[in-house]
């Protein structure tokens, strides 16, 4: 279903439909995360991916155009390079451990160690919260810094939108009056 959604995004030309489909995609992936026991990730994805990013994209659409124009570029080169990259990754997965097996390197190093320590160290029942806020607290601090920087960037890019528009209109009006006089 995820793949079908993604392929529909490739085909569709209406940007409004694409944004709606990307919301559907996020929601489906959130469901997938729940079946893989990652409940925290699932609700973050549902809130952020399906909620906030859809709203942001709709806002962008309101300020720009709604439809995608037909492209004259050849699709062959991107297709070939994508298939090649996919084939290389496919070859890479042949050595990967089986899905869900408990003996993989991922499961045998720090993961179980965290699980053992958390009840005594932190006294928080949710292991994800415990790691996020304390063992990897600096990561979370860095993340906050990134979000802050992005917020400032967005504000700097968008601020003055109205002012510039008024200026443009003024210039247009003045040139119009010049023309008439």
């Amino acid at each position: 279903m995820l793949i079908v959604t993604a392929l529909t995004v490739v085909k569709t030309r209406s940007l409004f439909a694409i944004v709606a489909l990307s919301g559907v995609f996020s929601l489906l992936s959130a469901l997938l995360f729940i079946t893989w026991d990652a409940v925290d990730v699932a609700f973050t994805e549902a809130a952020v991916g399906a909620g906030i990013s859809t709203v942001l994209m709709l806002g962008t659409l309101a300020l720009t155009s709604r439809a995608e124009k037909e492209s004259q570029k050849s699709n062959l080169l991107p297709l070939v390079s994508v298939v090649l990259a996919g084939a290389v990754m496919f070859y890479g997965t042949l050595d990967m451990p089986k899905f869900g097996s408990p003996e993989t390197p991922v499961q045998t190093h720090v993961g179980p160690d965290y699980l053992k320590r958390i009840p005594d160290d932190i006294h928080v029942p949710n292991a994800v919260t415990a790691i996020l806020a304390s063992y990897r607290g600096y990561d979370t601090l860095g993340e906050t810094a990134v979000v802050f920087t992005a917020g400032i960037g967005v504000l700097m890019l968008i601020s003055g939108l109205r002012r510039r528009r008024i200026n443009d209109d003024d210039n247009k009006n003045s040139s119009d009056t010049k023309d008439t006089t």
Partner: protein
Amino acid sequence: MNIFATEFILGHLNYWLFIILMMTGLYIVISKGNLVKKIVGLNIFQTSVFMFYISMGKVSGGTAPIFPLDGVYDPSIAYSNPLPHVLILTAIVVGIATTSLGLALIIRIREEYHSIEEEHITILEDTVFQTENLPLDGKGGSI
């Protein structure tokens, strides 16, 4: 032999799913000219990487890494690995920051060029570049 083959395919099906999704996202990013569509492709690409991480942390027969309220760790219960979940939580939030910055850039580009199609913008850029360079070339020729 045949049983091993089906087992192998079932055990690796998740990786192949990400590869297909990831390549779909990459294809959208490099082949489509519309900037908003490119951002959506980037999001698909990103989500496929998230799925890859989360599926690595999954233990079959395991449960979500939340302890019972008495706070005792029971080694006999299989929990999924919480570390990939934490990394991906951070990545999702950073991803939305990137997306919003990209969308803001699109709005600015649209304001400047009145278009969000890559080809149109390239043509406009070329004409601007040529008109700016023409007088310089003329001077250079006279000297």
